[in-house]
């Protein structure tokens, strides 16, 4: 039964991947210079890049599958594994680094019980570090799904995950 369920799920993912890729290609055009943009749209919509999506992109752009796969593993914006609902990116740019961002990162690793690059078991959080968010004057900064939190401290970082969960909870109640 579990096997059948897994097969069914895989098929659902594959169907969705095809749909998402077809949308992206229709939007952006089937040319090689749009490969990264297409991958980005799929990544945004699905939270990761399933194999089925990569295969469909290769077909649509008439490009070897291997090339799509290489690009998907080369750039940091992409993940071949599902990411958490909230992606916490700790800026480790120079300005943030000299303002002690490594301690912020450690605090989050401790709080979430995961290492950089991993996702919590409940699928809520993925912890990443990024080169520079370009908000250097506000360092240390953290980005959560596009929202920037500036002037972080170890104490603020420790509270952040709970705060995010609470805010979300309030959001769904509205």
């Amino acid at each position: 039964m579990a096997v059948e369920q897994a097969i069914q799920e895989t098929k659902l993912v594959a169907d969705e991947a095809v749909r998402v890729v077809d949308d992206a290609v229709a939007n952006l055009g089937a040319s090689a210079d749009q490969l990264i943009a297409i991958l980005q749209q799929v990544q945004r919509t699905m939270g990761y890049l399933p194999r089925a999506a990569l295969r469909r992109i290769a077909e649509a752009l008439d490009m070897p599958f291997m090339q799509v796969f290489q690009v998907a593993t080369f750039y940091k914006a992409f993940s071949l594994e599902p990411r958490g609902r909230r992606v916490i990116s700790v800026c480790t740019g120079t300005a943030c680094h000299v303002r002690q961002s490594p301690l912020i990162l450690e605090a989050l690793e401790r709080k979430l019980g995961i290492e950089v690059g991993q996702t919590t078991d409940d699928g809520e959080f993925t912890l990443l570090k990024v080169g520079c968010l370009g908000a250097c004057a506000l360092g240390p900064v953290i980005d959560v799904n596009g929202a920037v939190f500036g002037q972080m401290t170890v104490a603020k970082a420790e509270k952040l995950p709970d705060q995010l969960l609470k805010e979300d909870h309030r959001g769904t109640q509205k």
Partner: protein
Amino acid sequence: MIKNPTTPSDTITITLDGQPITAKKGEILLDVARRNGAFIPTLCHLDGLTPYGACRLCTVKVKHGSWSKFVTSCNYPIWDGLEVETATDEVNQNRKLVIEALLSRAPKAPVLQNLAKTYGVTTTRFPNLDPAEKCILCGLCVRVCDDVVGAHAIGFVGRGQDRRVGIHINDAACIGCGACSYVCPTDAIDMESVTVGHFRDRWGEDRPCRYSLMGLLPGSVCHNNYECWRCETDQTIMDLCQPVHPVFVARGIDNAGVRSVIRKMSVMIPPDHEDCDDGSTDEATAGQQSPPSDT
């Protein structure tokens, strides 16, 4: 820095290790140097494949007046008046460090051990990240699969320290030709027990002979359970194609004359495919492989 030619004719003069020599403008430095007897070691270079410039072993020093620079000879087009040093202490110092760095990845590879002996490298200070690793990331397998075979079954994945060659990521595109293993300088691709295993899994009972997938034989079935290294047909074709791998013959890059000989090997042709000609062979293999690139 590429200088425009100062002489109208295509023939130019460069100085190679102090000796003036003539060559054609725009020729690749490595070819010219080797033709004139210089010893320049390479690991990521193979005639017929796009130069890659990754291993840096072929780095030499080029000069012109007060200007000088270290360049990789495998992809450097020459120009009139160029002075080249191929084996000074400075040039060899780079080679030593390249060898030392690669030794940490593939310490047992004979090619590296020989180079280490030649250049007097005895130990390596570079960390060995994976003792089981043999690959030095020269990319020959990737380029042979892209440029010659045209199957695009192999590629680099990841980047930086995590970069590796992705061999069994795209098995559906692999035609089992073994060119990757053939060009690998450090024997990092295990054709016999690993790659063919994947190949067998993919095709199951309906097993084409790999030479038919290469387009060397009309559509034929393997009767030896992919044990190519013990197959009489395989041995025969390998011998016929010497000194190159059959895929180079198949792609018309080398030993083109052998191609027609192989095609007539009746022993390989099953009864229902007896009258296959060029056209239908291509049809039989269509969908299983991409056309070769136009290199």
